[in-house]
């Protein structure tokens, strides 16, 4: 937890404003204090407050997956996740998936397979795929088909291909990193 700010000169100066209370969480690595309605779903905090609009509204009922984000690395639907449940948790959105200019293998594969049509559901699809690959680096077709995110444009065949490609890219990156580590020894 954060410590109250003590002004220079100790307690004798101006009266500091009372410490705001709320839900403290991390979003894409940055600490954030949510002082609004703790029942507000994460989706509206991301979009309306933080303008992290890559996470999309599609149904508000956790059915379509357009709002999929990671909470401590697990895929979760932001539209049905109250902010109060996220105290002390780490949220990653599509904007925080890449490391700077280096795209996540799933994002890279998505471009190479040219998955998007309208593109609206794709952030959620990518977040779901990234979590799948983190759990199962070599997913079977049946694992991939378990991703239940809706795509109204019908990009599913390319999503399947892109996930297989992302698995290959991640594997190649891992062996390159291992080789580098070996050279260093």
């Amino acid at each position, binding site marked *: 937890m954060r410590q109250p700010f003590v002004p220079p000169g100790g307690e004798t100066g101006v009266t500091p404003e009372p410490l705001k209370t709320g839900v403290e969480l991390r979003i894409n690595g940055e600490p954030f204090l949510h002082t609004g309605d703790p029942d507000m779903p994460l989706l509206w905090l991301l979009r*309306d407050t933080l303008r992290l609009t890559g996470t999309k509204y599609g*149904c508000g*009922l956790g059915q379509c997956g357009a709002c999929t984000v990671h909470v401590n690395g697990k895929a979760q639907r932001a539209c049905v996740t109250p902010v109060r449940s996220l105290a002390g948790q780490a949220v990653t959105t*599509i904007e925080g998936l890449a490391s700077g200019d280096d795209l996540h293998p799933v994002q890279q594969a998505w471009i190479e397979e*040219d998955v998007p049509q*309208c593109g*609206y559901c794709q952030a959620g699809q990518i977040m779901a795929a990234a979590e799948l690959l983190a759990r199962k680096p070599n997913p079977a077709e049946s694992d991939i088909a378990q991703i*239940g995110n*809706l795509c109204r*444009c019908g990009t599913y065949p390319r999503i399947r291909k892109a996930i297989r490609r992302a698995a290959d890219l991640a594997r190649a990156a891992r062996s390159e990193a291992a080789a580098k580590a070996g050279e260093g020894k």
Partner: protein
Amino acid sequence: MSAALNRRRFLTVMLGAGGALVVGWREARAEVRPDVPMDLLGDALTSLGPFLRIERNNRVVIGARGCEIGQGVITALPMLIAEELDVDWTRVRVEQLNYGYEIGPDGPRNRYGDQGAGGSTSITDAYVELRQAGALARWLLVEAAAQQWQLPHERLDTEASHVVHPDGTRLAYAELVERAAALTPPDAPLPLRDPRDWKILGKPARTADARAIVTGRAQYGIDAYLGGALVAVVARCPLLGGSLASCDDAAARKVPGVKDVFALAGPAPEAPITRNLAAGVVVLAENTWAALQGRDKLKIEWKPGPWAEESTAALEAQADALLKGEGVPVRQDGDFAAARKSAKRTLEARYRVPFLAHATMEPPHALIRVDSDGALFVGALQSPDGASQVIADVTGLPREKIEIRLTRAGGGFGRRLKNDYVAEAALIAQKAGRPVKLMWTRGDDLQHDFYRPFGVHQMSATLDKGNAVTGMAHLCAATPRYFRDAGGKDRPVYSGCLEPDDFPAGLVPNLDKRFFALDSGLPRGWWRAPLHTFHAFAVQSFLDEIAVETKQDAVALRLKLLGEPRQLDYRGHGGPKFDTGRMAAVLTRCAEAIDWKRRRTDGRGVGIACHFTFGGYTAHAFEVGMEGGELKIHRAVCVTDVGRVINPNGVEQMMVGGTMDGLSTALNLQITVKDGQVQQSSYADYPVARMAQLPAEVEVIILPSEAPPSGAGEMGIPSVAPALANAVYAATTVRVRRLPLLPELMRRL
């Protein structure tokens, strides 16, 4: 249309801000004046004026004029310009253009040409004019180099954004911009490249803004925010044509963040729907969550309208009763009654297709600011012209004072051809006296749409001794597409449900095609390949039934009907001709690809269908079987001829997408009505298919064609439902004549 709008437009060029060459469609040289407003020229950071800018570093920026709804125009339209300009496509930056309405010297015009997205026409329309825009810019740059080098124009060539001297010396386009902009462009259209020499067109190109999409940076309409804007949600009357009786908003107003609550009238029940779709109560709040919370706390009583009794069951009964009558003739060839009398055999079948909702992933929304002297609108659109008109109508502002920023749209499928949500936002902003961001939930979207019509198709075929089809009747009882549309009365009642010249018109000597109008209060609109998804299911399923009943091969039967390759008159959109040879070619290729002739002995069945949509020819074949009580689609083949292909990658996406959309819809989707209201309200009861339900792959075959491009967004869907139903019959001997297919199949297995 005024004479001014009919006047031939020319391409003109200007030297824009930052020394960039800008090219656009203009009245001849009217714009080569010092008083051209800067915003026409655009600037590098915000909007892009006309189509093209060549920056000092020789980077080419090309404007995409269309509404990008997932059909790929943000990539394909700039490709048309890039080809003729002769630039390196991998070094092009594409920018979405905003809506280009302005008052020119001869009256209102759109400086970019047609920007709408409907009827798969974006590519067809742009094929000539955008290539001309590129060719003119190239001509000017070459001419500038010719003057600089003191050489005849004809001796110079271009390559990858450079003009090339006969000795191999190269001059970057950027170095020629200033001189080129001072030149007088030729009046006559320039010759365009022979397609055999195309470097960019016809080659697969990836989505221009894919990186923005996969990093979450792509801007959709729903992502737009504006300082001072309140979020508006509306509790709309769920009863067809109903109105507000009373509303207790005390609890809603207590929700923190809720700023205001007020009623919004709907259209008069019998009047055309030209503004918002339904009466409602508006909740304005500081954020979406507060607005939704406030709406939940409203206590509303609705007053039923004239369609309070409507139900899907009653509509079916109405259709069955009407079909016993005479109806309205759509097309009649020969004498079907006589053919029936003399027929050796007559086959009959009745097919039912439901209302459909669009369910775009990005629901309707609108951000609008209305000031006394102008307005700003941001939102996903398919018809910016319509949006501009409706905002002008509501606000009384002249259209040139209404700025419309185009964004990517999370799907369209025809929903955004209606601008009811634009009008709704404008009305709310006006009443609230401040900017408003209107948000629709998924429930709002499913309950308040302009639905694909509902209909019952009664098909009959007469056969002679040799089982040749001597006549066909297609009687269609449907909710007319044109219902409460301004101007809809001027059209034939079947318009938007049936095309007189669609299959099998012209292919059988006796044809009786008639229409029977059902009375329904549900608003209707265009839904991806609208009338074609609506009737192809009946026609192409029935052909399969004829083949089965007469023990003929279903492909051979269709080929026999199509006959010798020839051009038949086709008066509908996609005409003026229907080419039986092109239809036969896609069907034949599709049959080969699915291995049609091979008998399946493993419980699987194969079905096929073909259809002509908006100038494109497509056939589908599926191989299906029942596994563990579930319908499995093992193979999906889609063969298409959409004329010359601009971006093969884009056409493949459209065909895969059309096939998937077609399957999802045919298997699962229907909108039903009970007690005067729509029964569906979420993806739980309007179950758009997920990955696991659909085939892992669609084998797309694009036939080479030298015909002009037809577009591709809608051709990949109409033949899906019948091919699927025909495959299901082959695998299970259950003939499904009612969509959606899956509940019906499961009921009957």
